[in-house]
């Protein structure tokens, strides 16, 4: 079972490795139980979590609270008119990005859809560059050319931020393909929504992932809704992850409210990707508190009570906080300090964004072609642009 080290890129599915996958990933029954209220199972002592130190746990908590405070601040800025277009907030889903990214090694990569602030901050992007991007400023991570849906940080193995539902699923496949081609023992986590599972390219990608043994891990962040369409109204068959089965891809359903469970789930799939170069489909059940984009009406398709129920009983940050307090490894004061710092940094990032300059009109024409950005290495002739700023 050489996994990554097969001679050809198109090796046949390895039956041994599939069995291993089945072992390492949970069975449907098990996972269904977890999702349907088996909150009892404690993952904090599971393989992926048992060695976490106090500092590491606090750091995970801090990352989640920082994402939330950043986004809450961005919502205020949106309401004040500083941010245009769409603002798809990740609030309620933080454990998925933070838990997942916390398991990654140097050769593991991630790519996601437009609800991308959480993943961006989890890989280590800074508040300032992210807030400035939302404001459309020159100091933004994409120099103001990408906006909320299109954050990128290739130096952190983070490949965006993609606005077309499902459009990133073949890209994630390609990142995994390149890793394998270059004999790297890495994987690509490709995040997507429940609604995105109904896009055709996803299934083309699953077929290729399995056929070519590519180390891609599709993570369906199932927050129950595709905009205002509940899963029961958009998807036939349940659970969504089971759609991986005919492709011989291991799948599971797990809770995204529990950071430790997310980490264990990802760890199992990473093992299968790293050791056997096999893909997985992980459905992680989560919930978003805000409108699809913040300006969208929220009352047409779900009740206030439903949102309250999640906030009260399943909030990923609160759940972790309770665990840490119960374990007695942190004090309320320590957690408060983290929160206060997060809020302060979020406010500071809004000030930074506000004070930053807008891009110059001449920058409209930068970053279109590598070649025109690198005139010293120009190889072509002729005119590349046909209408340019005066």
């Amino acid at each position: 079972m050489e996994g990554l080290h097969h001679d050809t890129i198109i090796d046949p599915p390895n039956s041994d490795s599939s069995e291993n996958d089945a072992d390492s990933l949970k069975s449907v029954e098990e996972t269904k139980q977890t999702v349907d209220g088996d909150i009892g199972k404690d993952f904090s002592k599971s393989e992926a979590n048992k060695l976490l130190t106090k500092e590491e746990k606090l750091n995970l908590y801090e990352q989640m609270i920082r994402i939330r405070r950043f986004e809450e601040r961005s919502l205020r800025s949106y309401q004040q008119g500083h941010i245009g277009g769409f603002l798809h907030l990740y609030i309620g889903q933080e454990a998925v990005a933070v838990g997942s990214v916390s398991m990654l090694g140097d050769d593991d990569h991630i790519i996601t859809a437009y609800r991308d602030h959480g993943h961006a901050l989890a890989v280590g992007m800074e508040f300032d560059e992210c807030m400035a991007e939302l404001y459309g400023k020159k100091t933004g991570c994409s120099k103001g050319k990408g906006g909320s849906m299109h954050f990128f940080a290739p130096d952190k193995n983070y490949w965006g931020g993609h606005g077309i539902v499902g459009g990133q699923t073949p890209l994630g496949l390609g990142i995994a393909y390149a890793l394998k081609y270059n004999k790297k023992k890495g994987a690509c986590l490709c995040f997507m929504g429940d609604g995105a599972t109904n896009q055709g390219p996803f299934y083309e990608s699953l077929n290729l992932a399995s056929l070519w043994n590519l180390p891609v891990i599709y993570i369906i962040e199932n927050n129950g809704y595709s905009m205002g369409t509940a899963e029961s109204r958009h998807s036939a068959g349940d659970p969504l992850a089971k759609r991986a089965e005919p492709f011989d891809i291991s799948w599971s359903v797990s809770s995204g409210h529990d950071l430790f469970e997310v980490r264990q789930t990802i760890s199992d799939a990473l093992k299968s990707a790293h050791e056997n170069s096999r893909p997985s489909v992980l459905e992680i059940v989560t919930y978003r508190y805000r409108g699809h984009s913040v300006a969208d009406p929220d009352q047409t398709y779900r009740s206030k009570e439903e949102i309250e129920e999640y906030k009260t009983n399943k909030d990923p940050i609160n759940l972790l906080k309770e665990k840490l307090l119960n374990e007695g490894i942190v004090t309320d004061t320590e957690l408060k300090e983290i929160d206060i710092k997060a809020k302060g940094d979020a406010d500071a990032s809004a000030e930074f964004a506000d004070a930053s300059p807008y891009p110059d009109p001449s920058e409209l024409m930068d970053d279109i072609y590598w070649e025109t950005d690198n005139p010293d290495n120009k190889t072509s002739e002729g005119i590349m642009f046909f209408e340019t700023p005066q």
Partner: protein
Amino acid sequence: MAIITYREALNQALSEEIENDPNVVLMGEEVAQFKGSYKVSEGMLEKYGPERVIDTPISEAAFSGLAVGAAMMGMRPVVEFMFWSFCYVAFDQIFNNAASIRYMSGGLINVPIVFRGPANGGTNVGATHSHTPENFAANTPGLKVICPATPADAKGMMKAAIRDNDPVCVMENTILYNMKGEVPDENDYIVPLGKANVLKEGKDMSIIAHGKAVHSSLQVAQTLEEKHGIFAEVLDLRSIRPLDVDAIIATVKKTNRVLLVEENKPFCGVDSQVAFIIQDQAFDFLDAPIKRISAIDAPQAYSKALENIQIPDHDRILAKAMELV
């Protein structure tokens, strides 16, 4: 210099670049075992193995997107579309992802990828298999588009496309695959993108064309000369984006009369942009209104009887040329 076919020239370009750079791979439907639907990749699987010459399932969206993802990571994939017509099911991957990721990332990422395959009508395969999307692609900032018309250009421009650090759409033509011509053997034979080529000098009018229309234009130029004593200059655009505007303006200033010929459909076709540029930059040099001839504005017809009329042929181009004098 050897005399080889357009098909063999492409094969040379692909083979040489696979040998030159370990990051280059060729993938697509039937490219490996089957040797390519049009035998462009004949012998390559045997030579370079299945890691470099890769058969894909019929999943244009997935393998195009896969190649874009791999290109973001520094590989240089060459994606073959059996026909460019089939790129429409992968539109999102080409037009959103390959074309826009550099911009949306503020220049952090580049996508060194080649999408290639035949893009032509004229083979009696009906509307779904006869698209000429060079105008769509050229309408998309972030993409480069070339339409090599000769074996030498097929080699030199394909090599330039593969070495290019941006996405390049190479539009070939099944009818040209068997065309023979002199092609330099050298491994570093490169025809840069964005450089048009005067294939026939003339003083009385300029015929500007790209792709297979270049050859029909050359025939018409010969008739004009032999039968009417009119000396037409024929300019092969070769590259659509970047576009050799200097060469276009130079020939217009020389002959003062212009006929634009393309097998693309007329509305927002490549030549509507070319016509705009000419009137904008060389209006005072025109002795007559610009004339233009494109494919007749209907979905591509199956029947030979109809399709032969639909694509600008010798007589239709000649008639248009005569309107200029």
